[in-house]
């Protein structure tokens, strides 16, 4: 059997408008935003402003990194993020007098991770719709945290740990360092390990992945556990750097994280995504927020604009998918 028209195997990626769009759009968008920023406000393009912007978004950025895994594996989104952030923050500060700041921080992260594990069991093993499951656990955990501290504020004790979190290394704030390090760990985890491949496969076609021997339930569950872990770290860092924590500390973080992931081009339908692109998404969301404040628009406009961008990005994604599916 000879096939006359079989040329040598190649690695060329086919350049469709969709792939070109997603590879170039992020750097271009960042450059455009920086240019607009420089025009709108003289204080925008300064080292201190840009550092502050990134610093302020690096904690929620951690959650976006976890949320990338959730979306890639077809888990839609984790809506329990605010609750896990609150749990992490409140336990970190609340347990300080009892076990000391270091152990308290670990405990806070652990509690939030446990929340993530519960989400993972519900979504991955019991196969409950992720939106419903995480909305449920989120409400329960947030309610629990409010019950525990009675709606008040928990204050931090001065500690070396808190000072470290608030400090800078080589002129770069520790919070940014942590974000960068976590991103540098998670990027190869998604793109270069078997575990990352499982996430892509599960999100790309759950049935086929299962039939290929991929541990589908574990994969899905672990993405939620990871998001719980990172929500906990986020809460702990926020509590230590702010010196206080309330149950509402993480309100809206789920949406900011989802926005960043979606702007980064990860599909809400699962099956593709990249940590680097999410980092780009975090930077873009941060710059948009900053621009709104600097240009004198009311901060309330942030939701309006980022919301519109999310809807637009998902729309474009759905459009290209439909087009690809038809060919």
């Amino acid at each position, binding site marked *: 059997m000879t096939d006359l028209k079989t040329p040598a*195997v190649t*690695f060329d990626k*086919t350049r469709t408008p969709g792939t070109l769009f997603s590879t170039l759009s992020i750097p271009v968008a960042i450059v455009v935003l920086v240019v607009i920023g420089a025009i709108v406000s003289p204080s925008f393009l300064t080292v201190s402003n840009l550092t502050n912007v990134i610093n302020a978004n690096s904690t929620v950025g951690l959650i976006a990194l976890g949320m990338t895994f959730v979306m890639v594996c077809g888990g839609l989104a984790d809506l329990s993020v605010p609750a896990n952030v609150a749990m992490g923050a409140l336990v970190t500060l609340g347990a300080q007098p009892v076990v000391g700041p270091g152990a308290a921080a670990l405990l806070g992260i652990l509690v939030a991770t446990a929340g993530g594990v519960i989400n993972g069991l519900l979504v991955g093993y019991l196969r409950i719709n992720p939106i419903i499951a995480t909305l449920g656990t989120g409400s329960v955990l947030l309610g629990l945290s409010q019950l525990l501290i009675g709606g008040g504020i928990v204050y931090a004790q001065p500690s070396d740990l808190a000072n470290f979190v608030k400090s800078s290394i080589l002129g770069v704030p520790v919070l940014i360092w942590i974000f960068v390090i976590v991103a540098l760990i998670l990027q190869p985890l998604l793109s*270069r*390990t078997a575990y990352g*491949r499982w996430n*892509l496969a599960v999100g790309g076609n759950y049935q086929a992945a299962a*039939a290929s021997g991929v541990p589908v339930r574990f994969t899905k569950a672990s993405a939620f556990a990871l998001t719980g872990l990172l929500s906990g770290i986020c809460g702990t860092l926020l509590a230590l750097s702010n010196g206080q924590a309330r149950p509402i500390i993480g309100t809206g973080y789920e949406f900011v994280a989802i926005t960043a992931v979606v702007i980064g081009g990860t599909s809400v339908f699962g099956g593709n995504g990249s940590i680097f692109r999410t980092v780009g998404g975090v930077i873009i969301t941060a710059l948009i927020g900053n621009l709104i404040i600097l240009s004198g628009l009311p901060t309330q406009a942030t939701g309006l604009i980022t919301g519109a961008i999310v809807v637009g990005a998902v729309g474009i994604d759905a459009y290209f998918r439909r087009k690809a599916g038809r060919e």
Partner: protein
Amino acid sequence: MTKPEQSALALRMTGISKSFPGVKALQNVNLEVREGEVHAIVGENGAGKSTLMKILAGFYQPDEGEIQAAGETVSHWTPREARDRGIGMIYQELNLVPDLSVAENISLGAMPRRGPFVDYRTVTVLAKSVLTELDADIDPGTRLGDLSISQQQLVEIAKVVARKPRIVVFDEPTSSLGDKETRVLFDVIEKMRSRGIAIIYISHRLQEVMEIGDRVTVLRDGRHIETRDVAGVTPDQMVRLMVGRDLSEMFPKLDLELGETVLSVTNISRVGQFEDVTLDVRANEIVGLAGLVGSGRTEVARAIFGLDPIDSGEISLRGKVVRITNPRKGVAAGIALVPEDRKGQGIIPALSVRENFTLAVITRITNALLIFARREKAIVTDLADRLKVNPPQIERPLNAFSGGNQQKVVLGKWLLSEPSLLILDEPTRGVDVGAKADIHEIIGEFAQSGGAVLMISSELPELLAVCDRIFVLHEGNLVAEIPRAAASEESVMRAATGQVSAA
């Protein structure tokens, strides 16, 4: 049979060309279809059949060319235009809503109304009249999802017929049907033809084309090769026109010395699906599993691989009893299953050829942490070359490939896992002749290298040509074991239809 050449032209497509980035999908293709004619279109996957039909349905605009419907030239051909001019499409995949009734499905998209409300009386009346017209014994009030696949397809046809079409396109309509259901479909097509409806019939099954077609148009590489009367052409000639070369033998069969028993299944049952099934497969052997749709063939295969649990019985691999409760254990035990439902369970459409190929073995090409990217690429390149994946671009997402190439990738994924038992469920369904021969060759090579193969197929000639032995299932019971020498379409069919009570 009517004399189609005397009837009026229902459709004329002239000089149709269509390019996509990097591909000339169609070049100067002509197609004429007469009223009351069954016009078959054949060609390998990628020959341009679906592109031509998508143009006809109005989904794509041709770069060049002209479409005439009932003698009228239409300048801008849109999906709406196509529908208004009486073109109905019946695709391989059904476009029906399982939770609605049969009648609602038939009226879907054109619900008769009374004021703002759906006029359910008319819906039911319409459904009844169309179903009667098609001689389909289906109650319009039934929930669609409760019907068999073949009945659902009749509903799909009824949905199209209800709109009084002038031209109906059938795209691979029999790929999910058994022989009996295919008969029913052909009767329906015959009826439509006798009412003067023009029928375009696309199929890889040349026997069907011979049987039902009046004329046949052959496409190859986006070009119109020939249009002939079916009466004056043999399947062999058709194949030659389609592939532009001789297939020396459609199904090469190697005679191999059989090795030890690899799979031995004893009295396995799964309530409601199959009962007391006992079979075995030896190394170097290709064993067929035949039966009508619904006979339990797929269910037996799934149970062996661990996708569904068995209620009783025993499965042994190389003499050792194994308990396989999920596909991961199946893979670990050295079993591979190429599923019947390629789109649903075989491929990950958005991932590349490379990622699909290595999915089942990805943990074997990593160190403690990372995938060996270079080794992965080398393995995949080699395999893509061996399996003649076309186009040979391993970074391209799998949904950009034809069905035959997707199937090669699914097959390749399992070959990489180096299984001792390869289970194939309809491995060549919806696959063109060229790819089919390639797939048979791959299966043959696997058996030759010591593998055991258990193969399910609805196409008897395929089983007869490829298999050393054939087990036949009827309504969940194993009714016959037929050695190659004694196997004929007749003997297998007799068993499959329950005319033989025991082996």
